């Protein structure tokens, strides 16, 4: 509808928002979602009107006073086919339209800026790549695709931002992703919408949408010193990952530089794309997919690293990948104030011995 007449759309949205019947549209996907929603409401209203009109008019025309003797009608194949096929057609339109939106919401564009979100009873913890932590809040810039990588430490939670028309379950034990591109600066509700126990209704927060400049300022003012990747590097050293993952020719484990996003051959045959979910599995359940050419000797780190730790390691491993670093540089680092100290760790010389040089 917004494609057909922007003026009418604007008017409709403003009007409805002011009457508090309708949440603000603050993301790029929101108008698309609303267009479908309006279409559905419209169809339902028409359908309902038809049904109600028929009932009322039949009730008037054929009530007992007016029409004392019923005329038996068996049915009508034509009519019945009509009201089978028309709703079916409409439902199918809704299905296709809905599916298009579904895939749009859950397929992040290639170079979106990634923020990790960890849900736990009963708070949201967001981790920006620059090392900024937030609790029950999330700051994002306008005009930039933001991808959230979600995980839960305990039970199912659901990260919901009604103003963005976006929602995704945070699941224990695996990553899920969702993305959005905020359009209107402001503060919006963040809800946990999956029932998660006693304080489910308190697991709320604020989504703060800022202009890119404000966001840059915010990033600078709330950095905690080390970036995620630097934390990861520290963990990589302290968990002695580097004992196996290094560039020495007799290294027992594969070189991890450039592994992120690569297609890895598996010992069991087949290949797998090393995305976030895969890397996480590789650390926690290494024998699940063993890379070709290596013995399944990597110990599991299940129970030894917190979800935040895994995230830091991932961010570190990602940064070993030059392509990814370029992307991140494009996406996040340019947000940081010009100081070199805040650049991702891998750009600097390796800090600890044995760390892979990209």
């Amino acid at each position, binding site marked *: 509808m917004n494609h057909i007449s922007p003026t009418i759309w604007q008017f409709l949205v403003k009007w409805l928002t002011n009457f508090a019947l309708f949440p603000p549209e603050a993301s790029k996907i929101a108008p698309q979602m609303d267009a479908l929603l309006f279409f559905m409401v419209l169809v339902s209203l028409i359908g309902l009107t038809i049904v109600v009109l*028929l009932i009322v008019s039949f009730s008037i025309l054929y009530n007992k006073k007016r029409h004392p003797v019923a005329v038996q009608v068996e049915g009508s194949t034509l009519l019945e086919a009509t009201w089978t096929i028309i709703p079916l057609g409409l439902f199918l339109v809704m299905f296709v339209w809905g599916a298009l939106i579904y895939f749009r919401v859950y397929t992040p564009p290639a170079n979106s800026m990634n923020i990790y979100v960890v849900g736990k009873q009963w708070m949201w913890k967001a981790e920006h790549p620059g090392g900024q932590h937030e609790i029950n809040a999330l700051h994002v810039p306008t005009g930039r695709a933001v991808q959230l990588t979600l995980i839960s430490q305990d039970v199912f939670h659901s990260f919901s931002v009604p103003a963005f028309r976006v929602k995704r379950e945070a699941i224990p034990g695996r990553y899920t992703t969702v993305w959005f591109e905020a359009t209107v600066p402001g503060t919006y509700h963040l809800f946990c919408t999956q029932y998660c126990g006693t304080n489910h209704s308190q697991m709320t927060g604020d989504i703060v949408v800022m202009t890119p400049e404000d966001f840059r300022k915010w990033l600078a003012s709330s950095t905690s010193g080390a970036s995620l990747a630097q934390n990861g590097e520290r963990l990589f050293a302290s968990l002695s990952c580097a004992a196996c993952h290094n560039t020495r020719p007799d290294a027992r484990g594969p070189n991890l530089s450039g592994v992120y996003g690569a297609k890895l051959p598996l010992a069991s045959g087949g290949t797998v794309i090393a995305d976030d979910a895969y890397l996480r599995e590789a650390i926690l359940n290494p024998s699940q997919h063993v890379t070709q050419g290596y013995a399944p000797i990597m110990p599991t780190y299940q129970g030894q690293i917190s979800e935040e730790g895994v995230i830091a390691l991932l961010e570190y491993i990602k940064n070993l990948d030059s392509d990814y670093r370029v992307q991140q540089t494009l996406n996040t680092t340019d947000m940081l104030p010009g100081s070199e100290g805040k650049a991702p760790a891998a750009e600097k010389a390796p800090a600890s011995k044995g760390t892979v040089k990209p």
Partner: protein
Amino acid sequence: MSTNAIISLPDQSTARIPKDNFITRENGLLSWLLTGDHKRIAILYLISITFFFFIGGALAGLIRLELLTPQTDLMATDTYNKVFTMHGIIMIFFFLVPSVPATLGNFFIPMMIGAKDLALPKINLLSWYLYMAGGILAVYTMASGGVDTGWTFTTPLSTHYVNTNVLTTGLAVFVAGFSSILTGLNFIVTIHKMRAPGMTWFRLPLFIWAHYAASILMVLATPVVAIAIVLVALERTFGIGVFDPIKGGDPLLFQHLFWFYSHPAVYIMILPGMGVISEVISTFSRKRIFGYTAVAFSSVAIAVFGFFVWAHHMFIMGISNYAVLVFSLLTMLVAVPSAIKIFNWTFTLYKGSITFETPMIYAFGFLGLFTIGGMTGVFLGASGTDIHLTETYFIVAHFHFVMVGGMLMAFLSGIHFWWPKITGRMYPEKISQFAAVVTFIGFNLTFFPQFILGVLGMPRRYASYPPEFQVLNVFSTAGATILGVGYLLPVLYLIWSLKYGAIAGNNPWQATGLEWQTQSPPLTENFAVMPIMDHEAYDYEWLEQQQQAHKESEATHAG
């Protein structure tokens, strides 16, 4: 009574309730508790179901009271969580699933097909006892601290994180599930094997078709939730790991198993209600249902397709995107038979001779509300919009529209419709019409604002909420109060009518079903002479001839 009512009551001065009927045949509590008579068991069910409905309703009242203000001031959050959990569990498993089938179905399936009883009377009684055992266990659970998992028992919350009475609640649901299985099994067997001579499949009233379809769902789907509950119990007690992500289990597997039952269960809940609506609309418009076969087959289609769509409850829960596509498409398909039914019922009115007794008013309410509820179900079934609407009050509104606006209306419609047959006495028409209108208004006031709340993003299962949502919540609470009154009224006047209601006679509505061709209340063996079905269902012309003949024979007797 309005002049255009079709009621033709027997002459009040001479009318008497037949001395020998299923109520008077035997006396004493034991004769009820040990009965094999489907009609008595139906009444046992009716009483117990009403009891549980009011418990559930009182809990709903607490929910609405708490939500009157944005803060959590009436109760602590975990109390609130327990309240809505018990509300959901009691309403679903102890009220709505058995509501129409176990009362009206139990009472009228044998009568409509011309049988003396259900095929397995003892099993029928057993199923009531199981139901009661489950129900008492649920109430005991509530009294001893309750449970706060939500009625969906989502793992790993229910298995590892809450420390409330998950086990006893699970057992209660498990036992109630078996009661439901036995009821369904009994119905299927009865409908297959006990039909009177001449009662072919396509002469069956649509009430029977609907129950047949619902029974298939009960028999095939319920065991899966039983095993899911067993797994939850074992996970909780022994930590077997099948649902525990830490041990490598998949918590979503539980939801697959749970919804494999609970989606078909929503059709267990609505199909019998649809059966009632078919009977009522036909009777009060004095017409055969428009497109009998289409309505009959759409029941079966709903039952069959109902098995294919369960994962639409898990669209954002982490199932694969391709599975989302498939399940979303199938959900669209399952919605079609319901639409067919709505239009067929509407067109049954066409060229009818319509009167507006209470059952009909409830049925009209059903048509409108179920259309809204069903269409909003389609909103949720389209995967894209589900992202925004899921887990919000939109869902709460959706399912209350179909369950309360749909099934509960149908239940009340059916209770009023068959009240004269069950008790031999009429309910008071005026006040009950009033109550029906009150429920309709109260219902819309309660649940319509919740659609808007849902679109605004208010999450469900929240004890507190942002203040801007308050206005709509106040509407909703106000509506619930009216709704409560609307539900209290029938209880009062129906009890009143047991003693003071007008005597109904055999067939006050001039309906065609076999159940109306015998005395009310019926004999223990239902029919004095085994009926032979020699006409189609809803054959009002046959009925007229029958009555003509009856009058003539009376005239000759008198002469």
